[in-house]
């Protein structure tokens, strides 16, 4: 089975690149082939000019942080962190010094002799990161390191990780399925779909100028409605003849349900009925059944289900992609 094809990525020194995609898209396989646990059928992997494609994992000089952290339960925190240095033949007292440094960096002073079984999820994560950093790797690989943590701890560690990565200037590849995580952490994001990199660029670029309908949907613009575009750029319902068939993507928080018809002529207006209501804290999210498709829209006030409403989407919030015209 072919998991990855036509993947070409370059990562600059000191840069954090996120591999973003849904499960099964090949992002973890890509990371594991960099680490050397998976052998690609063809292609080259280079780190700082050195071709590592044919090397066994232990000779690649990469350090990986595993989703499960993969800390060794039969070793103390210090032994876990110092393992890579022991493998490199570093002197005992130099290892102890480095372990202390890293524990201080992780704000875990005094944990050296603890058993890893006694640590909380967040602490394990820090130890796993310290173990990876201990060897000063040419490339740090992170495989969804936050996915096993509580939301609050996750947000906290995300900021810490980003600050730390900036401070020590390490080059890192970070696998995640969480777009918010990718946006906040990465210098550049590679969006993967079915084993291919479908877009590679800065977070702003990916978010505001998605290259395809897939990327737009993945980045949160998951409302999709089929329209036609006239020669003068006006958008009309897909039922009308002529014009260029397009699909318009937009995020539900930019789609407003407005009673007052303050919408300008250029904005997209969709008429429909409320069929589902979700309370999301800063207001309500409604599923509106319109002529073309069901869309999600936002309003600050409560609307009864079944009520007729108008959804207004600002023109500049619409992401337009060409579509094959339907034969109907």
């Amino acid at each position, binding site marked *: 089975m072919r998991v990855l094809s036509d993947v070409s990525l370059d990562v600059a020194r000191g840069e954090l690149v996120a591999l973003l995609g849904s499960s099964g898209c090949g992002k973890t396989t890509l990371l594991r082939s960099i*680490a*050397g*646990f998976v052998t690609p059928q063809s292609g080259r992997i280079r780190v700082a000019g050195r071709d590592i494609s044919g090397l*066994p*994992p*232990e000779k690649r000089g*990469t*350090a*990986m942080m*595993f989703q*499960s952290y*993969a*800390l*060794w*339960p*039969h070793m103390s925190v210090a032994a876990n962190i110092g*393992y*890579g240095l022991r*493998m*490199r033949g570093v002197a005992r007292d130099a290892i102890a010094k480095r372990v202390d440094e890293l524990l201080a960096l992780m704000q875990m002073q005094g944990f050296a002799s603890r058993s890893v079984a006694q640590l909380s999820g967040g602490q394990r994560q820090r130890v796993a990161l310290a*173990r990876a950093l201990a*060897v000063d790797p040419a490339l740090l690989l992170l495989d969804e390191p936050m996915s096993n943590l509580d939301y609050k701890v996750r947000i906290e560690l995300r900021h810490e990780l980003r600050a730390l990565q900036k401070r020590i200037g390490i080059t890192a590849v970070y696998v995640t399925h969480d777009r918010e995580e990718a946006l906040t952490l990465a210098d550049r994001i590679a969006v993967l779909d079915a084993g291919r990199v479908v877009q590679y660029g800065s977070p702003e670029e990916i978010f505001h100028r998605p290259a395809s309908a897939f990327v737009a949907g993945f980045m949160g613009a998951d409302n999709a409605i089929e329209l036609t575009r006239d020669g003068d750029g006006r958008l009309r319902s897909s039922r009308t003849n002529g014009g260029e068939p397009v699909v318009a993507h937009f995020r539900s928080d930019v789609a407003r349900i407005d009673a007052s018809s303050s919408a300008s002529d250029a904005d997209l207006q969709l008429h429909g009925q409320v069929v589902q209501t979700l309370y999301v804290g800063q207001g309500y999210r409604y599923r509106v059944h319109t002529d073309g498709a069901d869309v999600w829209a936002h309003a600050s006030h409560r609307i009864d289900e079944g009520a007729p409403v108008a959804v207004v989407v600002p023109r500049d919030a619409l992401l337009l992609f060409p579509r094959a015209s339907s034969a109907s």
Partner: protein
Amino acid sequence: MTLAPRILPHLGRALVLALLAFAIFGPLLNLVLWAFAEKWYFPSKLPLEYGLTFWQRVFAPRGNALASLGTSIWIAVLTVIVSLVVAIPAGYALGRLKLPWRGLILLAFLLPQAVPNLPVYVNIAQVFYRIGLAGTITGVVLVHASHGLVLAVWIASAAFASVDASLEEAARNMGASVWTCFRTVTLPLAAPGLMASAIFVFLESVDEFTGTYFVGVPDVTTLPLLMFNASMGGNYQIASITALLLLVPSIAFMLVVERFLKADVLAMVGR
């Protein structure tokens, strides 16, 4: 009258439990009685005199009970070593690597248990006699190991299979070669399971009678053989005392095994 329906089921259960307890502990109790009986003739239901004379005889410096206990333990230790030397690589290969014919290989180790013992041992005895292994410790150890291997290999493969593969990957990633990774991560994590398999092999060897009888007699006398000789000679006291001695390692190790053999390892047996 109204109590009967409520008491009857309890009574039935108590009766079954009592029968079960008698079936398990009755023979053991008889053993204990015999071990301390000085005189016990036919019509009397209980020993006529109690004492420790026979214990003194068993533990006398010139008594052969201690010598055969030593032989038994020495053979068991050697059997454990032989079994582990085979079971560690075999168990790793079966538990960790994706081997074809895995099920068949595991089944092959079961063969010595599956076929009737006696014809096999008679044949082994004949072969061993020809190549000079009859009546030697080596011969007996080989016979015991053939029996112990099924336990050792099955448990070892389960122990290795229950070691999380990402722990090994983490070691490789941190710069450990295949061998160093095995030595520092896989083996220590599989150690409790291997310990349990070693104990099972030890107990199996200490208890083994048939194979030892055919291959070892007359030069190798283990505790079960001594017990057999004693009871054949009508010396029930000596037989009972050796039987009690045999119980000690079994019970002690069972308690240890219960601690070592965790549910996650057991769940992998035969997978």
